[in-house]
């Protein structure tokens, strides 16, 4: 075999091996990256960015004083080495100083997402701004919706009456009682899961899901005309009157022409 031929064959074999290795590698990773139902610590970046940035060092897990956060190990079937919590086992207790976010060295937990500014421009962390997930209620299994009195979730909610309120509904079955129904409000719910942790049904009837999974999105086509718009629509006509040959006359005149 000539030297050049040998070189070419070697090169092609090398490329082939590299492609094989790359495909195998991609195959191993496929499916390991995504777990849509995972709940992340407060102030986590959107899942895709979070998965790139997280260094898998576990310093948020160490910082968590309640041991709510755990690090995914092989066999957990979650993205390996990344932090998560399971509210039914241990919810997020919404520490005021948010130690997990402070401990993150990589920026995968971004303090900016839970920073609040007062009128003077002073910054402070506010756990109430976190959006770890959102509570959803299964009305079929929730006994409060049956008409039996239970407000365990409501009483445990750290944002009582903001994130979770009780609404009174007439009990049509008895005709004389009230159904005291828990209702979640997405603007205030942080997804801490304290409600889920105390739910008295066998499998929690109020449970936290990632917001991306549980919430819809209207899109830009529909706007609530009855609410003040944040910014004026681009298509609002100018104040100046439009003058055309036709508009020089009063419509009343030409619409009634020939009558």
């Amino acid at each position, binding site marked *: 075999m000539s030297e050049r031929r040998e070189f070419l064959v070697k090169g092609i074999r090398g490329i082939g091996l590299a492609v094989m290795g790359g495909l195998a590698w991609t195959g191993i990773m496929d499916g390991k990256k995504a777990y849509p139902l995972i709940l992340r610590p407060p102030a986590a970046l959107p899942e895709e960015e979070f*998965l790139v940035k997280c260094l898998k*060092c576990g310093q948020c897990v160490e910082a968590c004083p309640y041991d709510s956060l755990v690090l995914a*190990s092989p066999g957990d079937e979650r993205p390996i080495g990344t932090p998560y919590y399971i509210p039914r086992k241990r919810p997020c207790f919404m520490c005021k100083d948010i130690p997990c976010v402070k401990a993150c060295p990589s920026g995968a937990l971004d303090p900016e997402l839970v920073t609040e500014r007062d009128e003077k421009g002073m910054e402070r962390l506010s756990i109430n701004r976190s959006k770890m997930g959102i509570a959803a209620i299964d009305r079929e299994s929730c006994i409060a919706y049956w008409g039996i009195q239970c407000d365990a979730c409501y009483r445990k909610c750290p944002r009582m009456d903001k994130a979770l309120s009780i609404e009174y509904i007439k009990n049509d079955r008895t005709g004389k009682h009230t159904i005291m129904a828990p209702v979640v409000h997405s603007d205030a719910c942080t997804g801490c899961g304290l409600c889920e942790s105390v739910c008295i049904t066998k499998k929690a009837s109020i449970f936290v899901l990632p917001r991306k999974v549980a919430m819809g999105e209207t899109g830009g086509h529909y706007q609530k005309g009855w609410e003040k718009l944040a910014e004026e629509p681009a298509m609002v006509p100018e104040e100046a009157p439009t003058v055309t040959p036709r508009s020089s006359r009063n419509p009343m005149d030409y619409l009634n022409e020939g009558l």
Partner: protein
Amino acid sequence: MRIMAQKWLILRRITQLSIFLLFIAGNLLGWTVLRGDLSAGKLLDTVPLTDPFAILQILAAGSLLSLDALAGGLIVLLFYSLLAGRAFCGWVCPMNMVTDGANRLRRSLGWKTDGWRVSSRTRYWIMAMALVLSPILGVAAFEWISPVSILHRGLIYGMGMGWTAVAAVFLFDLMAVRNGFCGHLCPLGGFWSLIGRFSLIRVRHNREQCSLCMDCVNICPERQVLGMVGKESGPLLSGECLNCGRCIDVCETKAMKWGTRFGKDQQSAVSP
């Protein structure tokens, strides 16, 4: 005497174990000497330490890290590149104990064979592949499958099914290739080999005192770095030397000793 003959091995084990005990105490007891793990940690609650290879992959995946994390990477990088060489593999990485264990078992079973022939340069290809795949997969590719990370993270935060990966490495080193993982496949080892090639601390060989017994070559996990043994005096300059000091331990004629990459051996100046 017997203990002195294992001096550097014992010191290495003490170092490896105390680093991990400190990490574990950081997690369980809240000690602040070392927190986090080998991917990213914090020394004494102030000095950030980050794995530069992980940073490199994350940058390749198109994401920028916080300044803290980048500074931590620079600190670690400077320490090994200027001073310690590839010492991470020999003195810090817990996988070293696993593969050394496999090697020890090999020796005590009397298996002389090196096993399958795998090029020790494979690790550089895997390292390059990690950097190519990171932007394609959108995450730090090696960090997601690394048995090293599975082990060091597992020791601190719980192993789960991670022991399977560690067992696989052990069996591969025992059955398939002598020093197969650390010396042939591990891209992190490849990264540190490239970084460590200009470091100050080096093992030095003294030709005059060498009895050509080849004990050092037999014990060395990276035999190719000892090419000069019995031929010429001077420092071992290959970046693949992990500064583990096993050759110094086993050399009965003291022809191997610690030194720097600079200067000449005094004995060789007055050689006959």
